[in-house]
């Protein structure tokens, strides 16, 4: 009985936030109509923005995990000079205002290295730039999540694997990575969700060109810029629906542990 009361108290405290999110969604619903939703989905530019949003979010999630797994593992397990500085640097994209991330990327591209890269893979105001802008922020989310995951995993099993003849790489691949699979999935979920909703860096670095670099958050910006609140809210709800579908699919990959 005591536990139940305790849970009720927690529910009351946390429930306020859940109610706020639900209220925002209901308000969005009331600001649009099924007709606007249908019209938004039928607009070729918005469908192209949806396709680019899905593709770029998937690509930036893969890139973020590709750097987040080794970097998170390294920061959790290894002791090396400058480790504290690396940790600080990785956290920078989390605290920088999103517009500043976009401007910083543009400044990097003005340098000799950036120009050389841009010659081979055009990035500024190009679709590939959308992925880079999302990755610049999401890489930090993936790394932080995975660092926490590896920190909470005991290194003992890896040490046992080493005593049985595994190389460090084999111990990482065969022991640490499978143990961290739930954390990797959590990082993927967080990263994808962040990339899907990323706006500021994309706006500045990739620009907003319809059928080219427009993603759903920039569609909302464009519709609000001409006062079309109904379409903006319809696109918002489309984003929510797609996010729910993707996040539910990701959750199915790692079912909740029964209580």
């Amino acid at each position, binding site marked *: 009985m005591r536990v139940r009361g305790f849970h009720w108290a927690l529910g009351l405290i946390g429930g306020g936030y859940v109610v706020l999110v639900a209220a925002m969604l209901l308000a969005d619903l009331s*600001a649009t109509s099924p007709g606007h939703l249908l019209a938004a989905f039928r607009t070729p530019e918005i469908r192209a923005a949806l396709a680019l949003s899905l593709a770029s979010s998937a690509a930036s999630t893969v890139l973020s995990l590709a750097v987040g797994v080794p970097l998170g593992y390294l920061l959790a397990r290894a002791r090396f000079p400058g480790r504290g500085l690396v940790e600080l640097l990785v956290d920078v994209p989390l605290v920088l205002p999103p517009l500043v991330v976009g*401007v910083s990327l*543009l*400044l990097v*591209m*003005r340098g000799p290295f*950036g*120009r050389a890269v*841009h010659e081979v893979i*055009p990035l*500024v*105001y190009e679709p590939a730039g959308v992925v880079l802008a999302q990755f610049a922020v999401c890489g930090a989310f993936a790394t932080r999540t995975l660092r926490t995951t590896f920190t909470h995993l005991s290194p003992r099993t890896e040490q046992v694997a080493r005593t049985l003849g595994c190389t460090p790489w084999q111990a990482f691949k065969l022991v640490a990575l499978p143990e961290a699979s739930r954390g990797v999935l959590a990082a993927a979920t967080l990263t994808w969700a962040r990339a899907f909703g990323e706006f500021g860096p994309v*706006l*500045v670095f990739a*620009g*907003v*060109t*319809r059928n*080219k670099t427009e993603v759903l958050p920039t569609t909302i*910006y*464009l519709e*609000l*810029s*001409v*006062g079309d*609140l109904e379409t903006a809210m319809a696109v918002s709800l489309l984003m929510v629906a797609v996010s729910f579908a993707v996040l539910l699919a990701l959750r199915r990959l790692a079912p909740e542990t029964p209580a």
Partner: protein
Amino acid sequence: MRRVPLGLMAVVLGGGVAAFAVNRQSRPAPPLVVLVAASLRPVAEQVAAEYGEPVELRYGGSEELVAQIRLTADLAPADLFLPADASYLDACGPHAAVSPPLTTMRAVALTRRDYVPADWAALTAPGVRLGIASPQTAAVGKLTKRHLDGARWDALSARLAVTTDTVTQSANGVKLGTLDAAIVWDATARQFAPDLVGTPLPELAGVRAEVRVAVLAGSRRPAAAALLAYLTGADGRRIFAAHGFAPPDGPSP
């Protein structure tokens, strides 16, 4: 451990680079790139649809576009710049050419249809939630502040519920009901019709802005001047008028 044959990797990578290079060389001429204030999107989309040559429209807030021009003029140059008002043209450096005014905008009080202020006193009365775009970021705020003498601006500032980043944000506030009124351009008010109505007031009569288009100094394309001429000509005027923009120094449509 199985090794990937290095020769095969070299062939694949080399082939990819060669295909990429051939593809780049055989591409058709790139489209004219026009930086357009997001609030002028309907006009720009119609221009791009009707103009005979391919045009790439890049949208953004006028200030963001100025920053883009300054940061990436040599990296990803644009050809023309169509900001929300002509004052932004001064901020982005020299131009190859600037058009005469394409349209003139006048400041009005934007409200719902059931609340139309009879005069300035009614607009600035206590209890009226009034908004305007910030004088630091938007022309309507900057020019309103300049036009009203110091005391009247101070009185207006004291009554403001909010200053927004852009003129459309103020108008959205009225549409959402979080503001009772906002000082916006007449062209903005027409974008929000019929839900909202723009009322001209004598105190705002001198607050006017022009929209001009410029060929940017970094443009290497002779075709840019042709698009500027198209926007300035009869077709450009027709398209602006169709979207509620008054002709230069003409009456509101």
